């Protein structure tokens, strides 16, 4: 039933075989609220997919299902063609999926380097596996230098960083740890121009290196058109529009969104009649 609401879009043949991630008919309700009403989504290898939609369209819920934070009520998820189910964030991580959450998930009282390694701490060899703080500090400094993120010190506690620096640390943590899929839930919110540029460049570089396949949620269409290969629009818990970025324009996308929205209203009215 959700498929009939989709405008017919030509799907180009997959560049290199099996998609990195496929979501089929995923549903999720919180009490009486049906947040996801059957999500179908495909993420190709090395692709950057933009996800847009109004507040409450279900974008963040979808991301939290893919990251293992929520469990879906129905439908299935295929990772590299294989059916998977994530019982926890840890299990999604072990499949190579990392997420940058809207709230950043940083620990204010922990220093930058410990936030960067949260959940992936390096421990020294030996019977008692103590943290190797020196190694983590060194790697953190190196890594942040590599991706041009400036922080006062890797020993600074996260609560002392600016909003943009915090965001950069959260993105850096996910990028560093991700092996297959990177999920970015509004990675550019609260960022200054310089820092946004930094993250955009980082994501573009990751995409061209084909190391990761990426889903980005953002409200800024200029950013999305620059970053993404394809854009999916979510409305009312479904994906209603699926457009290749190089085949569309902001005007066309807006038009499609408006007409899709009208169609949904009519559907509801007809159902009521």
């Amino acid at each position, binding site marked *: 039933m959700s498929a009939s609401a989709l405008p017919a879009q030509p799907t180009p043949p997959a560049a290199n075989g099996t998609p990195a991630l496929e979501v089929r008919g995923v549903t999720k309700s919180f009490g009486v609220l049906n947040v996801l009403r059957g999500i179908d989504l495909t993420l190709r290898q090395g692709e950057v997919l933009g996800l847009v939609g109004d507040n409450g369209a279900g974008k963040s819920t979808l991301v939290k299902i893919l990251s293992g*934070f929520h469990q879906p009520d129905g439908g299935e998820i295929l990772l590299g063609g294989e059916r998977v189910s994530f019982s*926890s*964030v840890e299990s999604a991580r072990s499949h190579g999926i990392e997420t940058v959450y809207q709230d950043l998930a940083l*620990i204010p009282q922990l220093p930058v380097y410990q936030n960067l390694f949260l959940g992936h*701490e390096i421990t020294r060899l030996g019977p008692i596996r*103590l*943290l190797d703080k020196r190694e983590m500090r060194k790697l953190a400094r190196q890594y942040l230098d590599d991706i041009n993120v400036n922080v006062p010190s890797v020993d600074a506690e996260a609560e002392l960083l600016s909003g943009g620096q915090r965001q950069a640390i959260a993105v850096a943590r996910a990028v560093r740890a991700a092996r297959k899929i990177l999920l970015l839930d509004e990675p550019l919110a609260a960022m200054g121009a310089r820092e946004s540029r930094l993250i955009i460049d980082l994501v573009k570089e990751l995409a061209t290196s084909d190391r990761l396949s990426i889903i980005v949620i953002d409200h800024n269409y200029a950013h999305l058109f620059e970053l993404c290969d394809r854009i999916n629009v979510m409305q009312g818990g479904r994906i209603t529009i699926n457009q290749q970025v190089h085949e569309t324009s902001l005007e066309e996308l807006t038009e499609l969104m408006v007409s899709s929205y009208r169609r949904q209203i009519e559907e509801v009215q007809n159902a009521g009649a």
Partner: protein
Amino acid sequence: MGRRVVRAFLFQRELTPIVITVLLFVYFTIKAGSTFTGTLSLSSASGYAGPIGAIAVGEVMLLVLAEIDLSAGQVFLFSPWMMYWMHNDGLPLVVAIVIALLACCAVGAINGLITVRLNVPSFVTTLATNFILYGIVLVYSNDAEASPIPLSGQTSFISQLMGSWRWAEILWVVAITIILTIVLNRTRFGVRVIATGGNLIGAAEAGVPIRRVKVWCFVLCSFVAGLVGIVDAVKYGSLDPGNFGVDYILYAVGACVIGGTALTGGRGTVIGALIGAVLIGVLEDGLTLTGVSTNQFFIWVGVVIIIAMALNVQFDRIIARSRSK
């Protein structure tokens, strides 16, 4: 130089209570002389500090999680009773001790599971367990004192180690303090504790198993209290069912606060909790020896707790202000 001293006090919260303890020590030494610095007096100071410290150092783990365990004091008292009953039922002493400690761990696990699974605030969960354990002791002891305690008052190494030696208890607490300090600051588990207490949702999103971390900390706190509880019973040689754990836990939370642990979560110092306990011990012993009515002791404890907490809050504000410049 001056700046460095100020910085040290701002960032090493244990320094302030250390200085206060030393000042108290000097004051009582001047006032009471060798009566205060004698073995008898110092061992009685450590006798006050031991139980408070044992409960406080475990409690810090929970305060860092932004949780609290009000039952740890009663666990401290319950554990030796458990050992005593099991031993009286004919079980070998080692088995009786193991069962007692497992029972303490079970109490911790129940505290933790009720808190994380049923979403009962830990303040309430552990308040309830505190009463239940107190009741169990009263019912099964028939409200009668127990003595002698096995191992107590013997000269064997095991007996000395388990509490008969006058310094055994405080040394147990020091050893546990060192271990818990390493656990909190140097292990993956410690990072998870700080993360869970610092940003609950964020920690969960980052893959920290927040519920499991909390349950283990409740178990740890009960285990430590139960272990030193047995040592304390061996030291004194008898058990009084009328002892109420709340007396102990309130001192212990006070010791944590004096040591520099706020109750806001995400931060805490195990060493500070021990120092807080020692401060209270020195204060009680010193006031007794200098002939001041022991009733004054409570006034002073209250004053110290308020000053310590106010300093903590003000230090945090100074740090925040200097950083935002």
